[in-house]
């Protein structure tokens, strides 16, 4: 039986957003390719959620937390049972860690970080940003299964209203050559730029690291993540996890607010596919204005605090 298998991850008892997005596009692909949508997760707590997004079966491993070697074997066992045409991974750290390992095991091809997917006869057709978004490649994956990792925010999560998925346990080896000995939380409570719907980013125009508080205040008021240009990361003002652009992350949130970011080619590549872009910069000729839907020529040191207050007022209503 062909169909689509989706690697899912659970956080706080719920499927991660990336997994819900991957299941949603997976369901559409299963309709086109024929066969059922099935899911894979660490444990059965995902069964209700997976069913709600259309999965008929949920494969679970008794292997415990994520481990690339053990999960490769468990995914292989799930694939042996359903022979899916397509295997999808949400583009999380673990999804991107596991997809290539599984692909090498199965001699299969992978399209990474895709923002469009369609079933074209016997092949999976995918669009993916290359050169950090300076160009888009359309690729065809012709192996069975065809594997893809999905880009966050590219595929809307849509429930289909199914009942709980039937849980099927698959075995995994008990030993592996690598193990997690500790997990250190680095940004407690902070939203990651790859997951966020809204990003507020700061650049060199902030003048010094302490002024990132202006960006943080606005991001917190809106409920968005904090982004940064490469110059600010290289200057040590903020951690690399916040960097947008080439040698950072390519992001495509619904709303991107850039303050004091001039718009180097590497930064523009990383954010210009955002759906709505607001730029605040004192230089009317700054390249960032070329991609901004709304450009504000002015002083970020007066505009950002005013904007944070205005957002709080709007939210209070």
């Amino acid at each position: 039986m062909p169909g689509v298998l989706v690697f899912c991850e659970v956080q706080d008892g719920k499927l991660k957003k990336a997994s819900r997005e991957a299941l949603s596009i997976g369901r559409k692909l299963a309709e086109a390719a024929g066969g059922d949508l099935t899911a894979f997760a660490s444990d059965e707590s995902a069964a209700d959620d997976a069913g709600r997004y259309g999965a008929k079966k949920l494969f679970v491993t008794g292997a415990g937390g994520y481990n690339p070697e053990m999960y490769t074997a468990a995914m292989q066992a799930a694939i042996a049972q359903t022979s899916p045409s397509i295997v999808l991974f949400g583009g999380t750290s673990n999804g991107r860690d596991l997809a290539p390992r599984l692909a090498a095991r199965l001699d299969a091809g992978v399209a990474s970080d895709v923002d469009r997917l369609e079933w074209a006869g016997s092949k999976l057709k995918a669009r993916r940003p290359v050169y950090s978004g300076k160009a888009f490649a359309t690729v065809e994956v012709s192996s069975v299964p065809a594997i893809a990792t999905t880009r966050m925010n590219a595929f809307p999560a849509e429930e289909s209203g199914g009942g709980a998925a039937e849980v099927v346990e698959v075995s995994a080896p008990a030993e592996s050559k690598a193990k997690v000995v500790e997990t250190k939380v680095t940004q407690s409570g902070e939203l990651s730029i790859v997951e966020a719907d809204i990003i507020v980013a700061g650049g060199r125009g902030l003048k010094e690291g302490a002024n990132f508080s202006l960006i943080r205040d606005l991001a917190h008021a809106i409920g968005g993540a904090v982004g940064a240009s490469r110059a600010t990361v290289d200057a040590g003002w903020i951690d690399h996890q916040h960097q947008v652009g080439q040698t950072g992350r390519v992001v495509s949130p619904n709303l991107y607010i850039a303050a004091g970011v001039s718009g180097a080619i590497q930064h523009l590549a990383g954010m210009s596919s955002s759906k709505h872009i607001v730029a605040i910069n004192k230089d009317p000729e700054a390249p960032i204005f070329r991609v901004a839907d709304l450009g504000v020529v002015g002083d970020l040191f007066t505009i950002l605090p005013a904007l944070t207050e205005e957002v709080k007022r709007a939210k209070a209503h």
Partner: protein
Amino acid sequence: MNSVVCIAQVPDTETRIKIGGDGRRIDEAGVKYIVSPYDEYALEEAIRLKEKEGGDVTVLGFGPDRVQQALRESLARGATKAVHVKGESGDADSLGIAKVLAAALRTIPHDLVFFGKQGVGTDNSLVGPMVAELLGYPQINVVTHMETAAGKVTAHREIEGAEEVIEATTPAVITAQKGLNEPRYASLKGIMAAKKVTIDTKSIADLGLADSDVVNQRVTVVSLELPPEKSGGRKIDGGDPAAAAKEIVRYMKEEAKAL
């Protein structure tokens, strides 16, 4: 401790990308090639290990003749040996490249295999873990800190909002993230010494592989396009911060539907 650092050569990040005549690849005319930025962190870490514990740092690259330049640059920074697998890597998919590198790695003694966490350009982030699987090694991806001890490596792997500390047996595959270290520049002495090193050059056939193992197997690029040119939207004067803030909030609410 012997390390192999797998180097990808990519267009300079300043490059304005143009589409080539076949509509599937970039126009290479005038493109300056550099060592992929993440590979520099990988190389630096391997050199530091060598300085601490001895052993060799071999840089390994697959691709056309221009790859020799990337290998020379890496030697100048402190790698001790270089292996160039000559071949047209442009039509190889990631697993094809991984098979070439895995075959070459079988001929080079090593305890650790380093990659950048992604090749800047194709941005696949696939080859490192694929090589780990092909060789049966553990993998630690997106590494921001690492230490070695007899027969094992302990590394910090960056994940969403946290870092995992992972302990693995060697040989192992490590992929480097920015922040792992501060890469050095090549010294004049290094540049002179690098000129004397003979790059071990071989073909895919020398490694027992055929073109069909590598080229156009599983993933094919059918077209390459530039994103639609944005013309820029409305520009307003922010001289009155309160008025500007009101207009941004209106935009966020009514057009972006973000509030």
